[in-house]
C-alpha cells in the first residue's frame, strides 16, 4: 500500500484538472474574425483534423499526467518492498500465540516449539537500531533487546488462556504507532479460526502461521454439577466436549477419592454420569478424557460441596416463599428443622425479610443490634429498579425495598445489589433481604429463577457459602469481600476482600474466610481453544490486510514489513517522461503542419 510522507501535498491534485478545464474552454464560442482565405483553412483542416484532434488528446493526457506525477512526487510516496537483505530502523511487535492450543503436538513437535523457533530466528535478524516488543497471551507488550526477548521466548510455555488475535493486533498496533520508526506487527500463531477476530489494522501485519500438519482434537468444554450442595447420597453430572465432530472419546469423572465413572463423549453429544456418595465437605470433581495431541484441554476440575439438605423453619414469609419452601421440602431439597430460620431473626442461621408492617421495623432493627449484626433497615425506597447481575442473582425488577444501612465501620458482606445499593447482605449467620419476596416488592417470585434462588438461599447462602463459580485462566475474577485467602493445594494467595484474583492455571481454587472454606473457583481453559481448525489465509488477509507466510519464510519477512521504497524518484522520472512526451507531441503538431 502506498503511503505519503507529506500527504497534504495531495491537495495539489486539484491542479490536474487545469488541462481538462483549458481543453473544455476551447469549446466555447470564440470571437469571429473576417478572413477571405477561409477556403485555404478548410483545405488545411480537412487534411489534418484527425491527427490534430489526437494530438490534443495526447497533450491533455501527458499534461495531466505531468501534474499528477509532480504532485505525487511532492507528497513523498513510498511503498512496501519485499525480500530486502537489510532493513531500516524498525519498530516491530511480535505477537507470540502461546495460548492453550499452542500445546498441541503436530507431527511429533509441539506447536509452541515451532512458534518459538520462528520468533528466535526473527530476533536474530534484528539490529541495535530496531525497537522490539513481545506480546503474548497476557496482553502485555514487553520491550527488550533481542537477547532479552529471546530469553523470554525460551521460557514461554502454553498457557490455559485464549488469545484473541484481533485484540492483540489492536494493542500491538498502538505500540507500533507510538514509535517514531516505521514498523509493523508480526503474529506468530497456529492461526486458530476461533482466535481470528476483526480488527481495524492500519500498520503492516505479517502472519506466520504454523498450521501444518492439521491436528484433530476433542477437549472438555464443561462439567455441569447440578444443584449444590450435593446430598450425601450422590449426584449426577453432565460433561460436554468440544472439538472435531465425529470423534468419540472415553471420559471418566470422579469426585474426591471416590471411584471414577466412565462414559464416551463426543463434540455436541454430552454424557451424563451418576457419581457415588461422598462425605460432607468440599470436594474436587475431576473429568478427564483419554490423551490426544492436545493434553491441556483433556482435564477439567471443579469444586463441589457435599452436605445434608438444610433443616428449615419458616413463618410469616408470604405465600410465594412458603410455596417454594414446601416444594423444596417435597423434593428433598430441604427438610423441616431449626438449622435455618426464614422470615425472622432466630435459630443458628436466619434469613430475615423486612416486615410487612412498617411499625415493626424498629423492633427488628433493635433485634439486629442485639444479635451483633452490623446492618440496619433504613428508609423505604419505592423507585423502580433492577437487581445487578451477580453470582447469586440475575436481573430482576425491584419496585419496593428498604435501604440496608451498614451500622459498623465498613460495608462488608454484600451479596446482591440494586442499582449499586445493597439488597442482600450477610453478617455471620444472618442474611438480610431489602425486599419482601412478594410481587408488590419484586418481580422475582414470578420468575423461573425463584425456586433455585430460594434453594441457594437456604442451602448455601444462609449456611455461609459465598460462591461456587467458574473462572477463566489468567482473567481477573472478583472474589467476595469476606474471602481472605485463596488456596490450591499447598499454594495460597492472600486477597483483599472484594479484590480481583487471576487463576494462574486450570484447577480448583478454594476461597477461605479465615479458616472456613466458603466457596470455590473452577478455572479452566477457554473451550474455543479445543477447536484447532485453522483460519484460511484468505480470511486473514481480508480481515487484517495481512500477508500470511509459513514459519520457514517468517523470519526473513519480519523486517521487510517496514522496508519501503521511496517512490519520489519514480514519479519524478514519470514527470520527466511526460515532459518529453509533451515536447514530442507538440513537435508532432509542427510536423502535421508541414505535411
Amino acid at each position, binding site marked *: 500500500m502506498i503511503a505519503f510522507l507529506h500527504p497534504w501535498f495531495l491537495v495539489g491534485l486539484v491542479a490536474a484538472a487545469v488541462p481538462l478545464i483549458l481543453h473544455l474552454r*476551447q469549446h466555447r*464560442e*470564440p*470571437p*469571429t*474574425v*473576417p*478572413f*477571405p*482565405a*477561409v*477556403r*485555404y*483553412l*478548410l*483545405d*488545411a*483542416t480537412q*487534411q*489534418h483534423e484527425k491527427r*490534430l484532434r489526437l494530438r490534443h488528446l495526447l497533450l491533455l493526457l501527458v499534461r495531466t499526467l505531468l501534474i499528477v506525477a509532480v504532485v505525487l512526487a511532492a507528497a513523498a510516496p513510498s511503498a512496501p518492498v519485499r525480500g530486502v537483505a537489510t532493513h531500516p530502523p524498525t519498530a516491530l511487535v511480535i505477537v507470540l500465540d502461546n495460548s492453550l492450543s499452542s500445546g498441541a503436538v503436530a507431527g511429533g513437535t509441539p506447536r509452541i516449539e515451532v512458534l518459538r523457533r520462528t520468533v528466535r530466528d526473527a530476533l536474530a535478524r534484528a539490529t541495535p537500531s530496531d525497537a522490539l516488543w513481545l506480546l503474548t497471551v497476557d496482553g502485555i507488550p514487553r520491550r527488550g533487546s533481542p537477547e532479552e526477548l529471546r530469553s523470554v521466548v525460551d521460557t514461554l510455555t502454553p498457557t490455559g488462556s485464549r488469545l484473541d488475535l484481533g485484540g492483540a493486533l489492536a494493542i500491538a498496533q498502538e505500540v507500533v504507532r507510538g514509535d517514531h520508526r516505521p514498523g509493523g506487527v508480526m503474529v506468530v500463531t497456529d492461526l486458530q479460526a476461533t482466535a481470528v477476530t476483526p480488527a481495524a489494522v492500519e500498520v503492516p501485519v505479517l502472519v506466520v502461521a504454523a498450521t501444518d500438519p492439521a491436528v484433530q482434537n476433542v477437549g472438555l468444554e464443561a462439567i455441569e454439577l447440578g444443584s449444590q450442595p450435593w446430598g450425601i447420597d450422590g449426584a449426577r453430572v453432565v460433561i460436554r466436549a468440544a472439538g472435531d465432530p465425529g470423534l468419540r472419546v472415553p471420559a471418566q469423572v470422579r469426585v474426591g477419592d471416590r471411584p471414577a465413572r466412565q462414559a464416551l463423549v463426543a463434540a455436541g453429544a454430552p454424557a451424563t454420569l451418576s457419581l457415588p456418595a461422598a462425605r460432607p465437605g468440599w470436594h474436587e470433581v475431576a473429568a478427564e478424557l483419554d490423551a490426544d495431541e492436545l493434553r491441556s484441554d483433556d482435564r477439567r476440575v471443579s469444586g463441589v460441596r457435599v452436605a445434608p439438605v438444610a433443616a428449615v423453619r419458616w413463618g410469616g414469609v408470604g405465600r410465594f416463599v412458603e410455596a417454594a419452601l414446601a416444594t423444596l421440602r417435597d423434593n428433598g431439597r430441604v427438610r423441616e428443622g431449626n438449622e435455618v430460620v426464614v422470615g425472622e431473626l432466630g435459630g443458628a442461621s436466619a434469613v430475615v425479610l423486612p416486615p410487612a408492617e412498617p411499625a415493626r421495623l424498629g423492633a427488628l432493627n433493635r433485634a439486629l443490634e442485639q444479635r451483633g449484626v452490623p446492618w440496619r433497615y433504613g428508609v423505604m425506597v419505592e423507585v423502580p429498579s433492577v437487581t445487578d447481575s451477580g453470582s447469586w442473582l440475575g436481573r430482576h425488577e425491584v419496585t419496593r425495598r428498604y435501604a440496608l444501612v451498614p451500622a459498623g465501620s465498613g460495608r462488608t458482606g454484600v451479596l446482591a445489589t440494586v442499582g449499586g445499593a445493597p439488597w442482600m447482605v450477610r453478617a455471620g449467620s444472618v442474611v438480610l433481604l431489602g425486599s419482601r419476596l412478594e410481587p408488590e416488592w419484586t418481580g422475582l417470585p414470578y420468575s423461573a429463577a425463584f425456586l433455585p434462588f430460594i434453594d441457594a438461599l437456604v442451602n448455601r447462602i444462609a449456611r455461609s457459602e459465598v460462591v461456587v463459580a467458574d473462572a477463566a485462566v489468567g482473567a481477573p475474577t472478583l472474589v467476595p469481600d469476606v474471602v481472605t485467602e485463596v488456596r490450591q493445594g499447598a499454594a495460597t494467595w492472600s486477597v483483599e476482600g472484594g479484590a480481583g484474583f487471576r487463576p494462574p492455571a486450570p484447577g480448583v481454587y478454594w476461597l477461605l474466610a479465615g479458616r472456613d472454606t466458603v466457596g470455590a473457583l473452577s478455572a479452566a481453559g477457554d473451550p474455543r481453544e479445543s477447536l484447532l481448525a485453522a483460519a484460511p489465509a484468505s480470511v486473514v488477509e481480508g480481515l487484517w490486510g495481512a500477508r500470511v507466510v509459513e514459519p520457514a519464510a517468517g523470519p526473513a519477512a519480519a523486517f521487510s514489513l517496514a522496508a519501503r521504497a521511496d517512490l519520489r524518484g519514480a514519479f519524478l522520472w514519470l514527470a520527466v517522461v511526460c515532459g518529453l512526451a509533451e515536447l514530442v507531441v507538440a513537435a508532432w*503538431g*509542427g510536423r*502535421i*503542419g*508541414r*505535411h
Partner: protein
Amino acid sequence: MVRTERLDLLDPADVARLGGLEVTTEGVVEGFLTGLHRSPRRGFSVEFAEHRMYQPGDELRYIDWKLLGRNDRLYVKQYEEETNLRAMMVCDVSASMAWQGDPARLTKLEYARRLVAALGMILLRQRDATGLVAFDEGVRAILPARARQAQWRQLAITLDGLVPGQGTAAEPALRRVLGLLRRRGLVVFVSDLLLDRELALKALRFLRHRGHQVLVLHLMDPAEVELSGPAEARFEDPETREAVVLRPRDWAEAYQATVTGVVSAWRRECRRRGIGYARITTDTPFGVALRGALVHGARLT
C-alpha cells in the same frame, strides 16, 4: 514624414498617405522608370526583330551574349518599335479584395487600384491603348482601351469610383475582354484569385489561345500568407459567410503549406499555358511589384 525621391520603393501605405491616386501614381512611375535605366520607349512597346553582325560603334548592351557563347561571333539585337499595342487590365473588386490583415496596410483593392493606375500610366506613356474592366460577380466597370492623352485621367477616375462588390466570377469579365481586344493585345489580370480556379484558367487559356499576352498578378495580404490571430477564432469568409473555428497557432504551418500549394498550382498552371504569373503581397513597394510584372510578363520584357 517620408523623405525619398523614389516613391516606387516606399511602403505602399506610405505612398497612399502622400495623396490621391492621380498625385502619387506619376511619382511611382517616374521612380520606377528611372530605376530601369532604359528609355520608356524601349521598355514596353519595343519588340525584338532580328540579329545583325556587330560593327564598331554599336552599343555593347545590344550584343547578344548568348549567341556569342554558342557561335563565338558578335551579333547585336535589332528591335522594332510597335505603337499599336492594346492592353486591357482586368481588376477584381469583389468583397474579399476589400480586406486588410492590418489597418496599417492597404486593402487589396486599394493596392490593386494603385498598381493598375501605375501600369496604365506606363503603358499610356508608350502610347499603348489601355483600358480597364472591373468585376465582382459580374462586370462592374468598363473603360475601353484608348491611347489618347486623356485616357489615363479617365482610368484614374474609373479606378477611384470602384467600390467593393460581393462574390467573385472572373470568367464573364475575361470573356468580355475578348470582345474589347480585337487584335492581339495584353491582358493584365489583377485579383486575389479567391475564385473558381478552373473556370478562371479556362477563360485565361482562351485569351491566350486568341494570341493575347496574359499576365496574372496574384494579390495577397501578408496575413493571408501567414496565419495569425487570437488564441482561438472563428474565421469567416466575407463573401460566402463560410466559417471555420480553429486555433491559429495549431494550424499556422498547415495553412502556410496549403497556401504555398495553391500558389504553386497557379504558377504551374499559368506557366503550362504561357501565362505570366506573379504573386504580390500588399506590403510590397509598387516599384518591386511593377518589376515583377515586367519579369513575368513576356510582352513586357
